[in-house]
């Protein structure tokens, strides 16, 4: 799992989308993150760690390659804008709903 900076993550995510255009899926996971870098201590040890409250973890994968990034409050505005644009730009293979069917398959000529 590669942990990247926000910008690198967005670049890599773009590449993931481009790679998966012909086959495969892109899976993106979003989770709140409290900044812990060590696994939870077993009983007996006191947790000497201050949980941070202002971060989230974003992971992406195409099934083979895995990337991730941590976004905090300061970066979220910029990241969210770029991220939204990215999603909207790449998730364009879905059906568009129009009342007048323009597709060639459904020709209503009799």
């Amino acid at each position, binding site marked *: 799992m590669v942990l990247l900076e926000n910008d690198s993550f967005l670049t890599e995510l773009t590449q993931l989308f481009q790679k998966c255009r012909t086959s495969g899926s892109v899976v993106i996971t979003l989770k*709140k993150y409290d900044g812990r870098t060590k696994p939870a201590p077993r009983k007996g040890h006191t947790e000497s760690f201050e949980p941070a409250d202002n971060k*989230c973890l974003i992971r992406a994968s195409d099934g083979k390659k895995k990337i991730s990034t941590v976004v905090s409050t300061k970066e979220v505005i910029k990241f*969210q804008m770029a991220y939204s644009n990215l999603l909207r730009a790449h998730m364009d293979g879905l059906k568009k709903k129009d009342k007048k069917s323009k597709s060639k398959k459904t020709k209503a000529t009799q």
Partner: protein
Amino acid sequence: MPYYQTWEEFARAAEKLYLTDPMKVRVVLKYRHCDGNLCVKVTDNAACLQYKTDQAQDVKKIEKLHGKLMRLMVSKETHSGSMEMD
């Protein structure tokens, strides 16, 4: 694991689930360009809410929900166990 039929219900349930326990909830988004569909899942490992779509109009809604939850996650919680003194 139920797939919601309407986006409205899914979005409301997802936000509600997140607010009950922010640390436990994760949002998973799966996009398949070759099949032309998009699945969203919100779970806290006990409850699981899913929404599936192949409509372009839902992309914007899903992306907005993603952004909303992202902002909720990075904002400091004012209720539930805050250490700051007002």
